[in-house]
């Protein structure tokens, strides 16, 4: 009887063994002598499966999940954006409330800043000051990246429930910020005083912000959604004169369309965005283009970036949002060149220049 019980216990114990545990650390050494592209793969909200893909345009090779493979722990929940400053790649992980700084070659974590509510983007003023935008929190956090600590806040006058700040563009001493979720404005922040000096109402939900070669600001407003108490209107592309902080021109999209992913190319002379297909327009054009440069052909384009050095167009495809996505590379003329695999929901990009 004893022997049988022992055998039973051993069988059950063996049956209980699982492989959950530490991950292996992998060694990477990305070649920094030529440019590289990081693809921020959001993952699925509340899954904790955000990841980072690295693409080498020279060798045309991609490595997925480089953060997790290099550091032996996952990036977190919803990878939002990356900014390169002072030789480090700063990755903002929105729903984990953390910003990691990683080495651009080994992808190893070298710094970490915590204490955020829901960070979206980081913009560096200098090596001791950076701004971090948020949703669910109207304040823009001021951090000291060298010491990895929050040093202050920029009050924006919005409330916690609907206050949100998003992308940042700097022209001279001023940083411009679009306020996207349930908002309609662009903020102008004086970096010398860390305070909002002006606000400009542009339209419902400005989702992205870039500057062109003439230091004009461009934003796309998505127009909200049907049934939204905040309103529902036509999406727009808005050109703003930064100096006077006034709207210079508003281009209207067809009602119901959701343009997004505003990007610049050719040194800021050209604008690109996604509106089903990918559209291209010169910064001086007076009208929106009528036909897309790249047709979606059954694909839902998810994200967009332009190679600053050769004008190639990179388009993220999330497919069904729950599987690994792909990135399609098109020539500047809109011809498909090749594709490479990425993580789940490739939603943002960051270029690293050659050293």
């Amino acid at each position, binding site marked *: 009887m004893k022997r049988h019980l022992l055998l039973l216990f051993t069988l*059950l*114990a063996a*049956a*209980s063994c*699982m*492989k*959950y*545990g530490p*991950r292996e650390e992998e060694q990477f050494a990305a070649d920094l002598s030529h440019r590289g592209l990081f693809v921020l793969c959001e*993952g*699925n*909200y*509340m*899954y*904790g*499966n955000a*990841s980072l893909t690295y693409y080498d345009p020279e060798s045309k090779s991609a490595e997925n*999940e480089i953060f*997790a493979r290099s550091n*032996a*722990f*996952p*990036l*977190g*929940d919803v990878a939002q954006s990356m900014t390169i400053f002072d030789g480090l790649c700063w990755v903002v*992980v929105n*729903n*984990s*409330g953390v910003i990691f700084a990683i080495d651009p070659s080994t992808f190893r974590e070298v710094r970490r800043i*915590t204490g955020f*509510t829901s960070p979206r983007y980081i913009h560096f003023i200098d090596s001791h000051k950076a701004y971090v935008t948020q949703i*669910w*929190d109207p304040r823009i956090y001021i951090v000291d990246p060298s010491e990895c600590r929050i040093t202050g806040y920029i009050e924006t006058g919005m*409330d*916690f*429930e*609907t206050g949100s700040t998003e992308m940042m563009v700097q022209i001279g001493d001023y940083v411009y910020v679009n306020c*996207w*979720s349930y908002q309609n404005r662009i903020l102008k922040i004086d970096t010398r005083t860390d305070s909002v000096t002006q606000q400009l109402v542009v339209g419902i939900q400005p989702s992205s912000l870039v500057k062109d070669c003439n230091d004009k600001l461009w934003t796309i407003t998505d127009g*909200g*959604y049907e*049934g*939204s*108490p*905040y309103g529902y209107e036509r999406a727009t592309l808005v050109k703003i004169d930064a100096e006077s902080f006034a709207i210079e021109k508003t281009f209207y999209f067809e009602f119901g369309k*959701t343009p997004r992913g505003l990007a610049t190319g050719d040194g800021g002379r050209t604008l690109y965005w996604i509106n089903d297909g990918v559209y291209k327009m010169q910064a001086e054009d007076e009208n929106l283009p009528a036909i897309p440069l790249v047709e979606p052909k*059954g*694909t*839902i384009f998810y994200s967009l970036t332009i190679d600053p050095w050769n004008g190639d167009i990179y388009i993220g*495809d999330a*497919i*069904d*949002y*729950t*599987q*690994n*996505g792909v990135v399609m590379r098109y020539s500047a003329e809109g011809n498909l060149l090749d*594709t490479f695999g990425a993580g*789940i*929901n490739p939603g943002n990009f960051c270029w690293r220049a050659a050293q």
Partner: protein
Amino acid sequence: MKTRRLASIIALFAAFLPLAGQEPWWNGDPSYVTQITESAVVAERPLGEIGQHRTSIDSAALQLTVSQSMADILTYNTSVFVKQYGRGSLATVSFRGTAASHTQVTWNGMKINSPMLGMTDFSMIPSYFTDKADMLHGSSSLAVTGGGLGGAVLLATDNAQKEGLELDAVAGYGSFGTFDGFLKVGYGTKRWHIRTRLAATSSENDFTYRNYNKKEYTYDDFGVPNGSYYPIDTNRCGSIRDLHLLQEAYYTTSGGDRLSLNAWWTRSIRGVPMLSVDYRPGNKYLNQQSENTLRTVTGWNHTGKGYILEAKAGWLHTKQAYDFSKDRGNGTMVSMVQSRSLINTIYGQAEGKWFPVKQLMINAQLAAYQHFVESSDRNAIKESDKVTIGYEQGRFETSAYLSAKWNATRRLGIAAALREELYGDKFSPIIPVINIDYLITNSLTAKVSGSRNFRYPSLNDLYFLPGGNPDLKPESGYSYDAGLFFSKSHEGRYSLDLSANWFDSYIDNWIVWIPTFKGYWTPRNVLRVHAYGIETRASGKLQISRDWQASGSANFAWTPSINHGDPKDWADEAIGKQLVYVPLFSGSSVASLAYSSWRLTWKWCWYSERYTTSDNDMATKIGRVLPYIMNDIVLEKRFALRYTGLSFKLAVNNIFNEEYESVLSRPMPGRNIEFFIEIIPDFNK
């Protein structure tokens, strides 16, 4: 003073003792060894069970660990997939590779799936309130309700019709600051029976775990990193405060009519545990959901000569809240999300069973639900005091069912049924069901069935703001079953029940919520799914000697659930792959060994890997939920004292202290224990 108060309580308690007129549950003998009875003879096969694939949860399983929810009970006693988002968190049940919203749940006949979400949170159903739990697999669920593309779980209280006073009190204390209290007080006469049950749980739920999703670094004297480790983290924001109260009243008239009233009130405040990849400090955030629910069902049953009539009416009222707040840093909390929902459902049902001849039953059933729902997010916009985002909707739902069940010969039983549903102003297609039983031997029965099935979208699917899609089509499909059921027993020696069932289902227009470019999610009819597989079950008892008895059950299921939808684009790798979070294999078993008043129970469950991506990516280092195996044990000892029965119980969960996740980035506790003491006064003495 304290002594005097204690004496008063004892005196008050003693004053009730003369009222006693009921036998205690051990009949004077605290033994766990129970009588093994002979199987029912074939001639008494109930007509209502023709073609039905039903799994009944043993009452011993329901009572084994009263602190457990129905989610835990189903995990160890069936082969359904119970998806648990953490200890004391949302737990959903899905059959046969389908989704949680494809499992219909009734309580005393009333459907309790949320009309907003379409699903049921089984972590909120205490097993202490459940006397009967049955599962109807696949098309068998159509005998009760529509919409169960996977099946249905039927939960019910039971009129034990005990005369005299009954009292049962259980107190439990366990790991993670967990206190449980359960109380059952009842009084019955020949016609009346009134019973009140209370279940209260409080837990800090602050278990610690090795967090493999984070790393901390160690530094040398010069501040240079010289090592790293995975930290021991605490489950944050996961506290549980649940209170359930159940009032039952039963009355049997002199004419044999039975009347019943059940009212179940729930008050729950639970934290929503933070993900293991969340770096925000738990003490700076309030992430909490609360619920205030009242479910009432009243029923009438009349059994006449050759017919049975039944009518039920009910009301379901639920207020739910979700709050996400943050400490601004000065101790004041600022609200970021304040979601509120209010559901009122009025329910009515009438059913008749007519036996024109002994071997034929005609069954007609009509159930109606009127839902009123308000859903709002108070903080989305605060331009006025008025709630400005959300929806208010009502929907009338009716389901009519007509069946004929016929024992054509001693060996052959045939059943045919039709169900028709109305939701809002839309009708479902006619849903036909055909079932056939054939008795191969006195112990072995073959069952086959085929049906259409249909599930209409939930109110959130249609109207949630933002994202609701009023153009959604209902999910629909066909399902086929074939199985063998073996039952053999010998009174006083053994009993054995075995079953093996093959099923095959096709579901079109499967609804999935997907993100949009405006930052919210929206449901779409995106999948065509072929779910098929095998379910097996074995259960039995063995009388080893006069004082020794072994019993157990084991379940195993193989449930491929394959996406056969159209590819989204050329890169879509999800076609032909297993659905996300549906295990291909699942198994469970419970084994008990009783020696007189001692009993040791071993519980085991296993889920194979669940894919977290629709392309079933196995190369990923971050998205795998590895096979989940759990072992729990329960040791019990009963004592028969002069005036009371006493039971001590020690439950050890996760005895091998496994580190695991049931859902990605949701930590689960390691080994934990809970100790219970149960008192059942013997009012006969």
